[in-house]
């Protein structure tokens, strides 16, 4: 059981690390610098360690070899080249495979051989250079030393000035803390000015190896008591600036810093035991240290504590879902209380309602907070495509740079998980069909390296994701020809941009002459659209011939709760997502027109909008059958507006979406159900689906 848990944690952790590793390896190729190398080293090191603990012996062994190689890279013994990155990427792949599938030992052997031969070939050429470097370049690690100096009292007779030594020491780094021990100082009258009575304890922060410190005391260490202690681990400031501090008591901090001696601490603790005073106060009272250093130590202690507290908790998404569902129940109960408040007589009803408003505010805040937990930045999802773009570009012989913008944009975890595949399809599409070959690009006077931009941003309660390429754009004429060929449009018909989009997203549509591994078969784009629509999103294409194409995906921030308008048709209650609603109105009789064969339209602000009689569409009974007696809710999906005819608007409310099993209805116009305050079930209208049904019927 315990072993499984460790394994599970490792599997989860490794996934994340491997993803970072891959991103950084790509970066290593594009923009090599020490930071990236260090990070890569650390990732491999972590994998090695965790793999060892969780019983992945093969991975452990392999990572160890890889680590050796990376160490050489870190020490600049091996230059960073493309073959190296390729080799490292391949190795990362192997690790992933070995962890999540099964280790392929032939490949492992091959890789290890490659790693070794690469290392040797580099070592031969560079060994001399590296040796020199190793001797001259000090390790860049920051280390902490506690140095205690107790000189012979007659040290001045040898012509050595302790102050000069201390100054030497200080020049090596920075003094974090220094304490002068003056206990041996005799009364003034007895003092011999030519003798050294003082002792020092210095906490030094330096960038040099211990040897360098020792060198300072080369001439005095033999006949004086000099102790140098490497206390780096206590301060645990590692190379990457990662800080791990253990919780410390203030007394210990003072001792570590050399302000207090162990004996003094014992004394202080004894006093504290008796008097129950604060330790800091006792230290000051006793004169062991001045107020300033105590306060500083206190500050440090606080810092340590906050460091320890500011850790994260890994939570299963399922738990968050449960939390959200429970909150949904609260929202439902709240609206049932609101209903009761409506029925109460004035005074109590008023008071109850006021209290409910307060509660409503809290639940909203609560909901936002839970949502915020579920939100994760899209950056990592974008980053993982770097590898994909690189590999595919190589495969098709194109040069492509992937640019990532807005990686910090946050989305619901579920959305992010489900947007991956559509994104992959679209990026593949952009590489295959969008970006031209380097030669063709040069002929057109473009940079031979094509650019694909992944961009994400928030706008008006939605998240937009764009895939922008600077390729050749969509060949409208080719699309038109294909469309005519397939009988989608007539030969003499011109294509509007909207139609163009519709055609591109049709199943089985492709203008490609050759079929690639993924795109070109015409399965891509309709799947893309279906997937995005399943997330209640839309996708649009903007294309300028010769300049490039932009795919813009619009997604809702969250999938679980929406703000809905409750409408009534006869005895049935439906919910229309508020975000889709443009306006609602009571149409005048004269604004209503019937278009031959296309149904009814109403004139809304100089625009003819198709009218949907919901009772007809859903085959239910309604109170009003004349549009001018009923209300019309104008909704928008993509760029299409329709007017939904309903009997009444009941109100506006936050609702928790419950999915409707797909076998219940074939209708695309329904996206789910919600439970209302009175316990009844209301169906949620999928505006996009409804528009789809109407428009397809209309055409």
């Amino acid at each position: 059981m315990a072993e499984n848990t460790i394994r599970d944690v490792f599997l989860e952790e490794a996934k994340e690390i491997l993803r970072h590793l891959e991103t950084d390896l790509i970066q290593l190729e594009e923009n090599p610098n020490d930071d990236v190398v260090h990070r890569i080293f650390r990732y491999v090191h972590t994998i090695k360690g965790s793999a060892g603990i969780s019983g992945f012996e093969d991975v452990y062994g392999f990572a160890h070899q890889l680590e050796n190689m990376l160490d050489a890279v870190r020490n600049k013994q091996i230059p960073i080249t493309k073959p190296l990155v390729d080799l490292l990427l391949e190795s990362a792949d192997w690790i992933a495979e070995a962890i999540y599938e099964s280790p392929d030992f032939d490949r492992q052997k091959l890789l290890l051989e490659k790693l070794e031969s690469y290392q040797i070939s580099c070592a031969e050429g560079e060994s001399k250079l590296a040796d020199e470097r190793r001797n001259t370049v000090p390790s860049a690690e920051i280390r902490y030393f506690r140095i205690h100096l107790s000189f012979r009292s007659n040290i001045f007779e040898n012509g050595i000035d302790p102050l000069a030594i201390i100054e030497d020491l200080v020049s090596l780094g920075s003094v974090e803390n220094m304490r002068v021990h003056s206990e041996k100082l005799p009364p003034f009258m007895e003092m011999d000015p030519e003798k050294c009575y003082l002792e020092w304890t210095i906490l030094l922060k330096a960038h040099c190896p211990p040897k360098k410190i020792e060198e300072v005391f080369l001439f005095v260490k033999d006949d004086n008591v000099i102790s140098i202690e490497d206390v780096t681990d206590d301060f645990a400031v590692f190379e990457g600036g990662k800080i791990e501090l253990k919780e410390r008591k203030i007394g210990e901090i003072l001792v570590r810093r050399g302000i207090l001696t162990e004996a003094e601490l014992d004394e202080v603790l004894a006093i504290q035991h008796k008097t129950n005073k604060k330790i800091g106060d006792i230290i000051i009272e006793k004169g062991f240290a001045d107020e300033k250093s105590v306060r500083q130590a206190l500050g440090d202690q606080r810092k340590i504590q906050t460091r320890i507290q500011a850790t994260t908790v890994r939570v299963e998404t399922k738990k968050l879902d449960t939390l959200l569902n429970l909150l949904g129940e609260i929202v439902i109960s709240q609206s049932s209380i609101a209903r009761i408040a409506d029925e109460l007589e004035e005074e109590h009803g008023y008071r109850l309602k006021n209290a409910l408003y307060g509660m409503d505010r809290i639940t909203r805040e609560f909901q936002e907070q839970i949502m915020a937990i579920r939100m994760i930045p899209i950056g990592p999802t974008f980053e993982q495509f770097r590898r994909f773009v690189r590999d595919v570009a190589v495969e098709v012989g194109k040069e492509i740079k992937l640019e990532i913008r807005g990686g910090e944009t946050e989305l619901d975890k579920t959305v992010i998980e489900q947007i991956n595949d559509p994104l992959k399809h679209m990026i593949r599409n952009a590489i295959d069909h969008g970006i031209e070959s380097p030669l063709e690009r040069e002929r057109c006077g473009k940079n031979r390296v094509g650019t694909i931009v992944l961009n994400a941003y928030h706008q008006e309660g939605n998240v937009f994701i764009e895939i922008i390429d600077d390729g050749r754009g969509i060949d409208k004429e080719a699309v038109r020809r294909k469309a005519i060929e397939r009988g989608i449009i007539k030969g003499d018909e011109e294509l509007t941009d909207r139609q163009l989009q519709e055609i591109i997203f049709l199943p089985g549509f492709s203008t490609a002459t050759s079929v690639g591994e993924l795109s070109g078969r015409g399965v891509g784009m309709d799947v893309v659209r279906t997937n995005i629509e399943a997330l209640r999103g839309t996708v649009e294409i903007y294309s300028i011939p010769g300049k490039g194409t932009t795919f813009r995906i619009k997604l809702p921030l969250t999938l679980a709760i929406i703000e809905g308008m409750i409408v009534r048709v006869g005895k049935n209650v439906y919910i229309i997502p508020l975000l889709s609603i443009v306006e609602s109105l009571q149409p005048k009789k004269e604004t209503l027109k019937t278009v031959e064969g296309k149904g009814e339209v109403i004139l809304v602000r100089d625009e003819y909008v198709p009218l949907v009689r919901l009772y007809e569409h859903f085959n239910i009974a309604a109170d009003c059958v004349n549009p001018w007696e009923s209300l019309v809710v104008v909704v928008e999906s993509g760029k299409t507006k329709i007017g939904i005819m309903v009997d009444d608007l009941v109100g506006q409310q936050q609702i928790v979406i419950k999915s409707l099993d797909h076998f219940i209805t074939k209708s695309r116009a329904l996206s789910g159900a919600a439970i209302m305050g009175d316990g009844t079930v209301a169906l949620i209208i999928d505006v996009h689906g409804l528009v789809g049904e109407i428009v397809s019927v209309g055409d």
Partner: protein
Amino acid sequence: MNATQKKEAMRENERSAVKQYVTFMIGNEYYGVEVLKVQEIIGMTQIVYVPNSADFMKGVINLRGTVVPVVDMRKRFRMPEREYDMFTVIIIVEVKNRMIGMIVDSVSDVVEMEESEIQETPHFAVKIETDYIRGMGQVDDKLVIILDIDKILSASDLEKMNQDVEEAK
């Protein structure tokens, strides 16, 4: 049930594969479903009609916060419809991890039957498709038709019927 009784019951179960069935009536026939498949039995409640669904799909209900579809078994078996009365109940069953309600005329009893007592479906013309019948058993002097609930209410099946409805339109 006290401890000794429980033990006896368990021993009973071990001796022969005795299973319990919830029996109910549709028309004049008794039907049975395995008790383990049944989540609960509730009285008739408000059903919300779902547009453009198969005709046997009566709609959805709110079962303590969960939206559950309900199927009218009379319509499912292509029997004439009947007004719901005080005996009409909804049997909530679990099929492949989802809950579905069956509207039946009335619920009658929980009976025990040995596996050996259940006979293969005879292949003669019956009102309902024999695929959905696991077998028939005799309890006292009643004939109970044991339904294979996984088949009768499986999603793929319902979906297929939905499509048939669409095409018929």
